[in-house]
């Protein structure tokens, strides 16, 4: 219920929202949790495993229970913490893990069967039959146990990612963080102050206390505003720092417009690079385990205070407090001041402080709770026996756990402190990070303020800045008085991990079954394995394990906290990478004209290239491809070959570099000539091939395959920087500078002569020559090279003229009975000639395998030469390149199929090779293929069986020379 005169939200404005279809109203500044509590809605979900009714436990990001789905349809976002979802007008909120409704849930029978469902139940029960686990048990269990469901459709919401940089990152804007930011900012550091809340102050937002004579939350707001006015401070609210990574990098999730409809991204995932960081993450109140301590209406004492003081909501009308420390007495005090009835403070300590305002029962422990779907009473135990009282809200405090999580993200283990019964960060656990305040075990406001200043002082002095004098504000010094109480002994189930339904008994059972290591206990019971990583339960669980195993807490140790601190949506992590955002798209200058001709585009690396150019009346790609092959064989074909890598190599030692990286000699290449080159990796296997032209005495341009352009460039960088830094040579990519087109076919010369308005005589332009040309007044480059076996040329112009030249070439080719050819035709043309691509240069083949062993020049050394000469790599028994043609009834060839002798049994040991490239050759009128076959070149004429077991296909083939068409190469030289 709302309490008049309490809270700091705008009560004059009303926001309507629905929960499970029921209309409610709240105010700006409310969370879904505070708005539901204002309407006395206590039960908000069903537990993960036993489907027990659950309510709101906390008022912050550690909430394990109140997980809801927000939004509907494609916008639905499951597993949102009701304590973190800001109320916006028209919000649709739905409970989870219940069917048919929250009030009546069929699978709550699981709870009745609980005696059978304890820790290890699945491991022990569903062992056999083995095949049943995947098919029967696991799907059934997953349906029964669970969280919210994804919408099943693409999320239309956009998120973004970003990078920020600062000198000092302050994590948390409570008293410690605010003071740290103030000192760092006044020292002149570039500061980012991030807080996951919607207003600054941390715990101060929940408390009734004073700092420097002002209400603490006002003090926080004032300092926040002052910091915001400084040019060297950036404030980030609603920003959870989720992980600490190497070299001062932190991940942070900023919630922008929450679930409100509107423009712009919903969330932003930041990577913040900070020279230093101050962790002031505060602490999390831990519950005490007792029988049925998970009933809706039982929540942490600090949360009750927060709802009352910040949101003006009392979670109950008749509240009882159960604690083992002084801090929880504030809850009773604040409730009484607000006019809410407080039954009593049940304090486990026999020396607990007394109060004039409310009853304190010393030495009392709550040992049970009552009510159906919400709390209506509790039973507590004192030396004089058990007493049952009526109450509708129990505020529980078992002390506070410092929020050490980020300090553990790089392997640091927190350190136990007996005096405060809590783990604190290990100093230096994250390089460059200093911890301060409650997360460091300093629980009074005054201590937090002082630690914030001290931590920031250390950080700025590390950076060589001078820390200014900062006067510490006056604040409360009270803290603690804690007494160890983790679980109240007794019968029944006392819950530790609310999110994964783990009880005290489960932990003890783990110890009994010898899962005594804390990591084993975690895996056996699943404690701490839910999305909250056991924030509310880990310390209590290991304290109980310590007790059960007769060890101390420090000896028992902790499990590992890993990033993210709290869940991050995948949409935020993958922001910008949906669909085509996944990788850059590289378009050639002919892209628009190509797409306009309806060519299906295929991706080659990041490039888009045309597969074929369909024409009217053609119904299959083969028809188009065959026609395009015909252009090149009989007339003239045009193809954009810009995507091949082009590398400009200049310098006095350019020739020497090429001699090192290529198997062949390039220092002897004459200016104006082109030579085919084969490049090996250091291990002797083939890396890539291509042609290199000598444009000048000290100037070459190398071409690579499209696929390996980046790899070859990196290789050349490696060679020039690491292997031969002595070479005076410069290497730079010019792939993007030149638009380059292949002009191939018997009519290619007349086409070019017309275009260039010059004659290209065989004497001036023999096969494998190159030189500058002028195209319409523009200086270009012409290469007489062929990847089709026909008379072939490649003409290059600066890319700005690419689209224009493309149009001119196509128009001329079409007028001569030719036209465009795509990748399919290009592939057919090269297979007919036995030319190689990365289907053959697949990283496991050597020059020897390719029949190019003699291309490794004997006159000089080159990278990979020694390794390529290894015995096993020149073994004649190796699979070597051959051609295949079908000779039986079945004419189909399949790449990837394997080769077997006639009569041999089809088993791996009889495998003699494999097929790499196949096509239908319109030139020859049958299918052809390239393959690697053991002792292949000596087996021409032999019959071999091509077997594809995936397709159930067998084709009888003849082994032939891999050069199917024009083996003398006369057509290219023509």
């Amino acid at each position: 219920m709302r309490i008049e005169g309490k809270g700091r939200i705008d009560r004059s404005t009303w926001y309507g929202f629905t929960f499970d279809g029921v209309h409610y109203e709240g105010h700006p500044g409310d969370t879904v949790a505070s708005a539901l509590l204002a309407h006395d809605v206590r039960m908000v979900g069903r537990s993960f495993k036993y489907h027990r009714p659950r309510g709101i436990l906390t008022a912050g990001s550690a909430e394990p229970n109140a997980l809801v789905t927000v939004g509907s349809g494609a916008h639905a976002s499951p597993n949102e913490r009701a304590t973190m979802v800001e109320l916006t007008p028209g919000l649709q909120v739905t409970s989870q893990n219940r069917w048919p409704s929250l009030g009546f849930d069929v699978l709550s029978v699981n709870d009745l069967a609980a005696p059978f469902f304890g820790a290890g139940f699945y491991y022990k029960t569903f062992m056999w039959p083995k095949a049943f686990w995947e098919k029967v048990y696991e799907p059934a269990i997953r349906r029964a146990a669970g969280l919210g469901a994804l919408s099943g459709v693409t999320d239309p919401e956009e998120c973004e990612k970003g990078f920020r940089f600062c000198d000092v990152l302050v994590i948390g804007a409570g008293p410690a963080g605010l003071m740290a930011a103030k000192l760092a900012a006044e020292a002149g550091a570039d500061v980012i102050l991030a807080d996951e809340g919607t207003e600054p102050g941390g715990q101060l937002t929940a408390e009734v206390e004073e700092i420097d004579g002002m209400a603490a939350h006002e003090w926080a707001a004032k300092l926040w505003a002052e910091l915001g006015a400084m040019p060297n401070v950036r404030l980030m609210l609603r920003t959870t720092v989720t992980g600490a990574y190497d070299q001062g990098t932190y991940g942070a999730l900023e919630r922008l417009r929450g679930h409100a409809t509107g423009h712009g991204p919903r969330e932003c995932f930041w990577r913040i690079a900070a020279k230093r960081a101050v962790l002031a993450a505060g602490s999390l109140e831990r519950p005490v385990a007792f029988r049925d301590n998970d009933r809706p209406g039982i929540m942490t004492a600090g949360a009750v205070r927060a709802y009352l003081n910040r949101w003006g909501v009392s979670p109950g009308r008749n509240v009882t407090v159960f604690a083992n420390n002084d801090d929880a007495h504030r809850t009773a005090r604040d409730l009484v001041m607000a006019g809410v009835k407080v039954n009593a403070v049940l304090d486990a300590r026999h020396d607990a402080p007394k109060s004039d305002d409310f009853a304190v029962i010393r030495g009392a422990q709550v040992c049970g709770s009552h009510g159906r779907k919400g709390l209506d009473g509790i039973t507590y135990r004192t030396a004089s026996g058990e007493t049952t009282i009526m109450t509708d809200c129990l505020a529980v405090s078992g002390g506070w756990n410092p929020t050490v999580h980020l300090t553990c993200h790089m392997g640091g283990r927190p350190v136990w402190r007996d005096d405060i019964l809590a783990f604190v960060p290990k100093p230096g656990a994250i390089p460059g990070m200093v911890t301060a305040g409650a997360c460091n075990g300093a629980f009074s406001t005054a201590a937090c303020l002082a630690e914030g200043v001290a931590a920031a002082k250390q950080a700025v002095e590390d950076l060589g800045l001078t820390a200014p004098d900062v006067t510490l504000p006056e604040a409360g010094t009270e803290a603690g008085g804690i007494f160890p109480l983790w679980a109240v002994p007794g019968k029944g189930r006392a819950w530790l991990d609310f999110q994964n339904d783990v009880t005290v008994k489960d932990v003890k059972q783990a110890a009994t079954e010898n899962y005594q290591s804390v990591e084993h206990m975690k895996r056996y019971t699943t404690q701490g394995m839910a999305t909250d990583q056991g924030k509310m339960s880990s310390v209590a669980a290991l304290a109980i394990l310590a007790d059960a195993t007769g060890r101390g807490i420090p000896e028992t140790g902790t499990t590992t906290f890993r990033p993210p601190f709290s869940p991050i949506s995948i949409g935020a992590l993958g922001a910008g990478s949906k669909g085509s955002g996944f990788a850059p798209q590289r378009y050639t200058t002919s892209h628009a004209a190509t797409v306009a001709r309806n060519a299906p585009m295929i991706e080659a690396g990041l490039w888009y290239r045309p597969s074929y150019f369909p024409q009217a009346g053609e119904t299959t790609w083969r028809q188009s491809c065959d026609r395009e092959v015909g252009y090149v064989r009989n007339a003239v074909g045009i193809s954009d070959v810009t995507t091949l890598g082009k590398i400009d190599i200049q310098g006095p030692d350019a020739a020497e570099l090429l001699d090192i990286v290529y198997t062949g000699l390039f220092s002897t290449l004459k200016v104006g000539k082109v030579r085919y080159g084969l490049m090996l990796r250091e291990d002797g296997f083939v890396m890539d091939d291509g042609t290199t032209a000598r444009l000048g005495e000290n100037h070459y341009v190398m071409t690579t395959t499209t696929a390996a352009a980046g790899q070859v460039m990196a290789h050349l960088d490696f060679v020039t920087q690491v292997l031969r830094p002595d070479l005076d040579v410069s290497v730079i990519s010019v792939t993007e500078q030149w638009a380059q087109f292949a002009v191939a076919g018997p009519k290619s010369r007349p086409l070019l002569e017309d275009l260039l308005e010059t004659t290209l005589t065989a004497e001036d332009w023999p096969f494998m020559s190159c030189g500058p040309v002028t195209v319409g007044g523009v200086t270009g480059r012409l290469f007489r090279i062929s990847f089709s076996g026909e008379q072939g040329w490649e003409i290059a112009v600066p890319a700005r003229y690419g689209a224009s030249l493309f149009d001119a070439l196509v128009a001329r080719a079409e007028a001569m009975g030719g036209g465009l050819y795509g990748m399919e035709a290009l592939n057919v043309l090269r297979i007919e000639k036995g030319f190689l691509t990365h289907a053959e240069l697949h990283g496991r083949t050597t020059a020897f395998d390719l029949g190019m062993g003699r291309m490794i020049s004997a006159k000089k050394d080159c990278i990979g030469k020694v390794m390529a000469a290894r015995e096993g790599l020149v073994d004649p028994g190796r699979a070597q390149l051959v051609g295949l043609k079908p000779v039986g009834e079945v004419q189909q060839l399949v790449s990837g199929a394997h080769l077997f002798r006639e009569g041999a049994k089809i088993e791996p040991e009889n495998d003699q090779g494999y097929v790499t490239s196949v096509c239908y050759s319109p030139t020859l009128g049958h299918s052809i293929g390239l393959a690697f076959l053991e002792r292949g070149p000596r087996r021409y004429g032999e019959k071999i069986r091509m077997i594809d077991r995936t397709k159930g296909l067998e084709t009888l083939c003849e082994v032939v020379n891999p050069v199917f068409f024009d083996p003398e190469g006369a057509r290219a030289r023509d």
Partner: protein
Amino acid sequence: MIELVASTPCQGLLPLEHGPFTLTELTPGSLTALAPFSGQDAALSRALDAAFGLSLPDVGAATAGGSARVIWFGRGQYLLIGPAPVADLANVAAVTDQSDAWAVVRLSGEGADEVLARLVPVDMRPAVFGEGAAIRTYLGHMTVSIARDDDAKGPGYRIMAFRSMAGTLVHEIETAMAAVAARL
């Protein structure tokens, strides 16, 4: 005689505006990569000074002289922007025409660094990435060169990406411009 028509890398894609941010295509004239031969850095600097009145910049920086600029362009590489190179340069450096290899855009507007903060893993705030700064880095998944390019209205950034990726470049920056503008 055939007449070849030139097109720019971002033709039909720019200019664009979102909130205070403007993205335009630049056509800065010639782009020439200069890689000094061994021990010729000083000689290249002198040759540049003689021809254009500017010197070789330091790593991560740019120099300007009249309409000419030279930006640091990677290890042992510089990019001369504006005028065509003079023949002398080829005596001391590898000279490579890159005029058509890059899409060149300019992002400007109050807070344009916030747009780049969505895309670039380098601190682009004007106070940090100061006047005369030039880097090679990533923009989304692309490698780019970014240089400060201020005008009378305030700070701007000249961003260069591979010509073939012009569409992706514009799309990425536009998305970030819209996202940042939505926060204003």
